[in-house]
Each structure stands twice: as C-alpha cells, then as structure tokens.
C-alpha cells in the first residue's frame, strides 16, 4: 500500500489557485467559496494552513457577502446558504469569526426557514435537507441556534426518512449518502440522534463498502472517494463505523492519489480535483491515518477548530 503524498497534495491545492485560466476553473468560478473551504480545510488537516495569507482570504470572503447577510459563491454571485456555510467555516478555520456581523448572517439564515421547519437555499425557494444542514451548522458555529425553530427543523428532517433508515432531499425522496450526512449531521448538532434507527441505517451505510474497499453512495453504484466522507462521517456519528473494513478503505483512498502531481480523484486513475482531494484527506483523517489532524464528523472542520469554538481551547 502506498502512503499519503501529503506534500504533493499541498502543492496541488496551492497550484489550483494559480490556474485561473483553465476551463475547469472558469466553469467552477461560481462556487469558489466551496472550493476555498475544501482546499483550506485540507491544508489545515495536513498542518499547512499557514502557507496561505489569511488576511487576503478573509478580505475576499467579505467581498462575497451581500447586504442581506448571505454569501455568494464568488464576488458578484447571488447569496445562498451553500456558500454562507463555506464562508463561516473558512472564517472559523482562521479563527476570524469576529470579522462577521453575526446578527446580519443570523437574520439571513433565519429568514430562510419555512413554516414546515424546512429551509430554502435562497430567496427563490428551493427546499432540500442539504439547506437544513447548512443553516443548522452555520448557526451552531455562530452560537445562534436559538434564533430558529429547532424543533420544527428536526421534525422536517425526520419526515425525510426512507425505507432503509436513511434520508433524502425532501419527503419521499430516495436515500443518498450525501443527504444522509446532512441529515445525521444536523440531528447530531441539535442533539436529536435518537430519531435515527442506528442499526438499520448503520447496516445500509456499511453495505456501501464494495469489493474494492471503496464506498458508494447508493446501492449498486460505483465506489467514489467522496463517499469516504459522507458515509464515514455518518457511520461515526451513529457509532457504527466499526462495521466497515477501515484498512481496505484506506487503501482505496490512497490508490486514488495522483502521486506525481498531487491531488485525489473519485476512483483510481481518474482526473483529480479539489473536491475529491478534500474528501479523500478528510476521510483518511476520520480513519485515524497517522500524521493528519482529527476531523469533527458533524461540523466538517478540524476537531481543534470545533473545540476552540465550543470550549475556547485548542486541543487536548
């Protein structure tokens, strides 16, 4: 089995920022804030966040904020919960939450809660449990969970439960590991994990591990490195992660590295990208791979960052 090519991945992440003229980066321009979160969190897990000029990042993030309090995916793009969460997470990484007008961000998020407890992603009204997670995670980090109706928010998430114990984007929708992470994460943060049938969901999730050792996101689909995050973090939050073979999964993730130029891909020998690089490294961190910082499965941030927020300490 190969080893984690940490230095190569650092180089790769830093290089992505410079390749602004490639077609890929232009196509992804609208979600640059997500990209910043993936890249910077990976750097932090690898212990290399200090290679980045935090002032530059923070000032760019603030330029993505709108009058409403929400953040767009890049300067000039419309605000949305998806990018508001990334903005808050990156500021948390740099311990710069104090630059925020917290009331303003809170007001933006609170206004997106609907009567049934669900959340719209933005003013146009698309509803999805992903947005419930974004809202709850953001407000918890800002210590403003009390500004929304948590009970209703939880009730809505529970209404999205499916036949297999998992969760879909809306009531009636099929289970999907990414969606399950969002729902389990939101329930974890609100202390509501008792709504989950841990054995039923845990079994469905552990059955996502296929012969190659990788995890898929739904039955009879291909394995993909990003599910190392979605499935693993969910299994950890419900304390069922011992039901999969961790060694085989570590090998699968390591096999997806580009050991020459850095970066991690969805499957071995595919093209790498920043999204899968983050999920690969974060997955390895959840698997207690040596040399990586520990990741918090619910907030999707390094444990020391989460502890700093909630206990005002760095780590034990």
């Amino acid at each position: 089995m190969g080893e984690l090519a940490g230095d190569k991945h650092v180089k790769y992440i830093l290089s992505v920022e410079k390749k602004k003229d490639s077609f890929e980066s232009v196509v992804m321009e609208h979600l640059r804030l997500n990209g910043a979160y993936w890249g910077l969190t990976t750097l932090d897990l690898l212990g290399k966040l200090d290679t980045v000029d935090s002032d530059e990042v923070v000032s760019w993030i603030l330029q993505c904020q709108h009058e409403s309090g929400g953040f767009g995916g890049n300067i000039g793009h419309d605000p949305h919960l998806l990018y508001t969460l990334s903005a808050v997470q990156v500021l948390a990484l740099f311990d710069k939450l104090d630059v925020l007008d917290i009331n303003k961000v809170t007001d933006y998020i609170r206004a997106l809660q609907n009567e049934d407890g669900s959340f719209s992603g933005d003013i146009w009204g698309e509803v999805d449990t992903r947005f419930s997670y974004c809202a709850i995670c953001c407000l918890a980090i800002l210590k403003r969970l009390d500004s929304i109706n948590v009970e209703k928010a939880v009730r809505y998430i529970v209404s999205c439960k499916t036949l297999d114990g998992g969760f879909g984007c809306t009531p009636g929708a099929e289970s999907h590991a990414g969606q399950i992470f969002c729902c389990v994460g939101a329930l974890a943060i609100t202390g509501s994990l008792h709504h989950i049938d841990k054995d039923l969901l845990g079994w469905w999730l552990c059955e996502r591990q296929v012969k190659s050792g990788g995890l898929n996101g739904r039955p009879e689909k291909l394995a993909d490195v990003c599910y190392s995050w979605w499935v693993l973090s969910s299994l950890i939050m419900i304390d069922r992660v011992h039901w999969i073979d961790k060694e085989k999964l570590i090998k699968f993730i390591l096999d997806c590295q580009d050991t020459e130029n850095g970066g991690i891909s969805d499957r071995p020998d595919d093209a790498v990208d920043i999204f899968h690089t983050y999920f690969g490294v974060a997955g390895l961190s959840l698997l207690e791979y040596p040399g990586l910082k520990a990741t918090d499965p619910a907030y999707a941030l390094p444990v020391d960052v989460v502890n700093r927020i909630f206990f005002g300490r760095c780590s034990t």
Partner: protein
Amino acid sequence: MHGRPRTAPKPEDAAASAAKAQKLRALQSQFLSYHHSRIYTEEALDASAKLLEINPEYYTAWNYRKLAVEHRVGESGSSPEYVKSIFDEELKVVENALRQNFKSYGAWYHRTWVLSKGHSSLDHELRLLDRFQKADPRNFHAWNYRRFVAALLGRSVEDELQYTEDLIGNNFSNYSAWHNRSMLLSEILKKKEQESSSQDVISKEYEFVLNALYTDPDDQSGWFYHLWLLDQTFKVKAPLLVSSWPVPGFDLVVSGNVSFADHPLSSFSEFTVALERFPVVLYFNQNVEGVNSSTVTIQSTFVQNEDVTWKPLSLQNSPASKVWVGYLDLSGVDHHSSAPYTVEIKLGHHQGIMSSNGLQLSIPFDLSFTVSVKPLETQSSKDEKVAWEEDKFCACETHLQVAIPCLCYDGITVDNKYEPTTSDWQIGTIAEEISQIRNLLAISDSKIGKITLARLLMAHDAMSSPYATKTVHAEEVLGLYSELMKLDPSHYQYYKDERSLVLLQQLLSSRETLLRYCFCYRGITSPSAYGPICLRLNNQSISRMGSFDKLLWVQLLDLSDNELHSIEGMEALQLLRCLNLGRNKLRSFTSLDPLRYLRSLKVLNISHNEIGLHSIDTTRYSCSASPLSHNGEIIWSDDVFPPEDADVTNYWEAFMVFKSLELTQLDIVGNAVTNEKFKSFLLKILPKLQFLDGQNLHQI
C-alpha cells in the same frame, strides 16, 4: 471531475481548453454585468441562455432568469398567450441545460419553479421524464421531479406503481424504482385500513420481489425492499410492556438507612436492595411517551401516587423512551415493622401511554409485589474492596437461585388479559418467507440472503413468544452469522455484533441457562453465609451488549474480557452497583454516557480499554450531556466551568460521566488517557472515591 480519466494534457488540448475558457469567461462577465444592471433585453437573455447551456450549474444565471420572467410578465399587460410564451421559453432553456448536465440542481429547480406558476402545459413533462429516466434510471433529480409532476397531474398511485413495475421489469437492479415503490405502497396500505385487503397487497409484493431476488441473489436492490416488506408484515404495532423491576409477585427486602460512607456491598444479603428510595423500572417493546402519575397508578400504604415522578431513561433527553423509571420513597415506612407492604402498580387502564405513531399500550398491566424492611445487621469494613478475581466467586447454591427474580414475566402477565398480538397471517407469512429463502440459499450463497434468513428466524421466534423466552432458532442463527463472518470479512464486525445479541438472548432465555452465569460473591465479609449474586458474562467474546430487559435485577455485573466498544442500553440497569468492564474495547469516556443514569453505581472497573487512544470519538454526538450537541443538560457556561480551570475543559468527557456518580472504587489503569495529571483530576471530581486502581486512598 467524476469519471474523467487522468491524462496529461496534450499541448493542443491545452490551447483549445484555454480558448474555450476565454470564451466562457467573457460570457460570464458579460452576464454578470447584465445581472447587476438589471438589464432584461433579448440580447441579455440570450447571453444567460447560452451561458446555462454551457454551464448549467451557474446558479446566479437561473436566478437572473427568474427575475427576468417576473420583470417581463409584469410588463406584458394581460395577454395570457404572451405570458405562456415567456414561461415556455424557460422550459426550453432548462431542457437544453439538462442535455448538458441532467444532474444540475439549478436546472431541475428552475423547471419546478416555472411549472408551479401554472402557466405551462404539463403534457410534455412525462415524455421528457421518460427520456431522462431511460438515459439514467437512477437519477434522483428526475425521480423527485416525477413525484412533483405526478402530483400536479393528479396521477393515480396505481399508475405510478405500474411505472415502477415496468422499470423494475427492465432492470430489477433499479433501487430508485424500488424506493419509489415503497413510498407508493405505503400510501396504498394506509388507504386500505381493513386488514385483509392490505394483507393481499403485501402477499402480492412478496411474489413480485422474490422474482427479482431469484434473478440475481447478489444484487442488493430487491433485498432492501424485501426487508422493508418484512417490517410492514411483522412490525409489532402497539406498545407492550415486556419486563419490569420488580417483577410481578416478587417479595422485595429493603434495608434502610444507608449512607454514602457505607461499603458498596455491605448491605447485601441474599437479594436485598439497600436504598432509601428504590426504583420501579418499566421496560416496553418500543419507545413510548406519556408515562406519568395519571397513566400509571400506584397503590400502597407508604407512597402516594402523585409523589412518584416517572422519567424516561433516554440519552439525549427525548420525551420518548423504551425504559421508564420511577423512584418510590421509603422514608414513610416503619423500619421496625416486619410485615410486608403490598405495592400494586396498574398501567394501561387509562389512555396516554403511546408509541411515536400514536398507538396506545395494547394490554393493561397490573403488577403487584411486596416490600419488607429489614434493618442492617452488620456492616463490613470500609477498607474492603470489591475484587473480581476468579477465586472470589462460587456457584450459586440452590436455595439462592430462588432469589433470582428473572424470566417469570411470561407466565404472570398472561394471567392479565394478555392476548397474542400476532395474527396467523403474520406467522404464516414469515414461515412462508423462511422456506422461500431457504430454497434460494440452496442454489446460491447470497450474503444478504443469509442475513435475511437470520432475521426471519429471529422474527419468527419473537412472534411466537413476545417476551423472547423461547429461542428455538438461536443455534441456527448463530451458525448463519458465523458463516457470514467468513463469507464477507469486510463486515465481520457487523455480523459479530448481531451474533452477540443473539447469543445473549439465548443465554438469558431460560432460567436454566442463566443460572450457569450466576455466582455468589465471596470477596467480602457478608452478614449472611452467602455473598451477593453476580452475573458473570466475562470472557464470552461478546462485542455488543443487549437483552437488558432480562437484566433489570442485576446488581453486580462482570463483563470483563469481552470485545465491547459500547454499552448502549445499560442505562436500564437501575440497580447496578458494581460493574466490571475491564479489558474491553471502549474508546472514550463519552461511550460511558449510559452510566450517568445509574444512581446506585459505586464500583467501576474500566481498566485496560482504549480510552484516550483514538483521535476520533465515535460517541461524541450520541452522549446526552455533550456541550457539542446543544441539547445537553450541561450548560457550558462560565458559571459552571470557570474558564481558568483548564482541567475541566481538557477532560470534559470524563467530567461529564463522573460528576453525577458517587463512585467509591474505580479501576482505570491501562488506558492511554491515564497519567498523574488525569488521576489528580479524578480525585477532584470523585470526592467519595476510596480505591483508585486498587490503592486505598485513605491509607496514603
């Protein structure tokens, strides 16, 4: 970049990509300037359409088009044709975008938004969906959209059910179709309230899914559906009381006046509970709400009904729980009277105890027992510690076995108005499925087939004996799990956990097998000739603990030398005083959360576990008092935890578990977390501790 091969770019490709990038960049900045200046001209709309055709994920452009629609409709006067044409234009843009990327959230939502405005014809939608669902039958966006359109069109559930049948017919591996089928069928079952017709529906489904299972027994899709169908068949719907402490008819002996300074075992004599207040535990077959002094009535001379507060034993402070406890206060009892007091507890005579889906307790229960008070005869020395060595235990004498109040549940409650809640149809269906799956396994080594058979057999046992006192198929199920551990080593630990639960159920199913694990503890000076009874399940290779409903009476429990990584459910053991969890696989203090509910716990051994060894805590979010889960009892404020006390924040997990316990003896050696600093922290938060890792703290 899902599914794109990793190749070094050729120079000519790089040039082409750069040219494409430049074009797209120009288009994107052109678009943004239109958007920011609120320009909705033909030309501007064209630019956004072109942009979305190349990059459907460019969400701001979808927002812009919605703004443009509102703007144009507002200006159009009232011509319905013109309004319709504006919306039709949007449908075209969406279709083009979906052709580029049919997983685009923004494109699908834009279509939903357009249709919900009600100006567009729906005729085209099902055809469009057919095309997309044929190209990618697992596309969940398309399925969600389909449910939306079907509702708008008022399509019948039966028609949609037929559609899933067609798709499954084409490819039975279509989990998305099976999923949708489960949603539709739930609706049908809800409508067919009368049992017999819903039974017909379910029986037909079994035939349908078995066909798929036979076609490829290794495909997961049908199996998950089959499992769901089983759940619809044998789900015990109404709540039922499955066990209690004390058990009906029990003669409880209580000795009063126990103060904390006493030795944890000093008051044991035969089966005595030494508390000024003793617990009544009610154990149901599922989570229930509404256990309180109006749904449970207590008749006795020494306690008033209203004085008993019932609490759910639920981690995470949920109002519903399988296990409820109420403490009876003995302070009003005459300690010199030897006559037993009768306590009668009645529940289920009034509505109110109900499951999460609103079903009431199915059968009323009356349980009565007697309580007599006996003064303490002798007291052991404070300096005696509880030792778990082999030579401290001896087999139970026959006369003591009478004192083990287990398993008498089945018989006694039948005297109440107990009627079996399972129907012949249910048992027949399960039996039929058992034989079908056996046939299938004769021709295939299907892993999920074996799991299903194991579950069916356990369900069959549970149905024929709701108190799980008969485990006819346990041996066969244990064998199936052992096979699975070899057949599918990646999920070894899952099978091992399931196997442990079955094993425990078997061990505790009859008085005879249980007695093999009951021992007298001789390690202390005891007022009676015999020491207290200890249940010793040590060294059984158990990886998961279960069957707590059978263990409510246990006061000494030895679970050492097993492979436990969790003690989920142990909060039910309200009488527990001495617990040995040494040499297991517990990973963190948060995994000990259930101990916080055990008021009587005095002696704890968690030595030689893995506490402090792991960077990832798998119970960080399931423990009830975690300040991270925003629902804890601990308010993480400066008043409770002075910020200057770094120990408390560093060791918050240990603090959380131990601060509510009054341990007198703790063994914690052999965990990565223990060092001198941690030990001195423990002494601070456990003031009543007398022995730490075998050392008498009062003799230092």
